[in-house]
């Protein structure tokens, strides 16, 4: 086994473990614990991206996800300040069991088909100089994908305005907190 394979296994196992911690009740029951597990998952993923020679994306992963998105998550978790009885784990129902079984079946099948179909695909092409660096990705974004790139800025603007409109306190509206009622 080369060093690269060892690093892949370490990071992959850590990533999957972190993702499971987010989703499964023991840790994911408290949203703040789930957020911390998600943060760890993002850092491990960033390491995996470096292994894939995607250096700029790895940096962006830390900046955007581990930085901005996680701050937003922890801010909202602490703002809402959920009480203990509101932090119950998943309530098992027939639909959820069916959904979980369907998800597991489909993803297992997809993974098996992909692994079989690409078993002898070339692992890696020869990389041009500066692959995945800032100049390389910027060239793609600003020359080949200029229109989607500019549309992204419009999307972000719409998201900001939409988030403000949705979360705004309605003037003279309903009581701030009505526990037990249906939302």
């Amino acid at each position, binding site marked *: 086994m080369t060093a690269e394979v060892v690093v892949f296994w370490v990071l992959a196992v850590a990533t*999957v473990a972190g993702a499971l911690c*987010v989703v499964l009740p023991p840790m994911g029951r408290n949203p703040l614990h789930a957020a911390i597990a998600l943060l760890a998952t993002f850092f491990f993923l960033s390491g995996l991206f470096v292994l894939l020679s995607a250096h700029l994306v790895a940096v962006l992963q830390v900046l955007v996800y581990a930085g901005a998105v996680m701050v*937003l998550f922890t801010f909202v978790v602490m703002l*809402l300040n*959920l009480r203990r009885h509101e932090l*119950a784990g*998943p309530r098992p129902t027939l639909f959820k069991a069916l959904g979980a079984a369907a998800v597991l079946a489909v993803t297992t099948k997809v993974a098996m088909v992909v692994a079989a179909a690409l078993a002898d695909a070339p692992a*890696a092409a020869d*990389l041009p100089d500066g692959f995945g660096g800032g100049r390389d990705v910027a060239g793609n974004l600003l020359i080949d994908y200029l229109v989607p790139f500019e549309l992204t800025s419009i999307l972000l603007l719409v998201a900001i305005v939409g988030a403000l409109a949705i979360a705004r306190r309605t003037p003279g509206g309903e009581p701030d907190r009505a526990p037990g009622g249906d939302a």
Partner: protein
Amino acid sequence: MSGVPLSWWLVLATALFGIGALGVVTRRNALVVLMSLELMLNGVNVAFLAFARARGDSLAHAAVFIVMAVAAAEVAVGLALAIALFRHGGNVDLDRARRMKG
């Protein structure tokens, strides 16, 4: 050069996507559902980058960049929705949010 086969990367991507989908389907805390959505998007990013590495073509890195921007927008709107849900019902329990149920 890279000793890791493409299929391993894709299995990892599928696993991340599946774990995220599992969370979206089974959890009832809106915040944890949003976090699971992030996991699904990251699984897709892993697949993009693995193919980019295998083909030696970095166009997919631009796609990953755009996926990240969309994910950030999605989190902003999703968390605003969670706050609005909390204002109305005092919790973020998706099983109890059924005003819009048909």
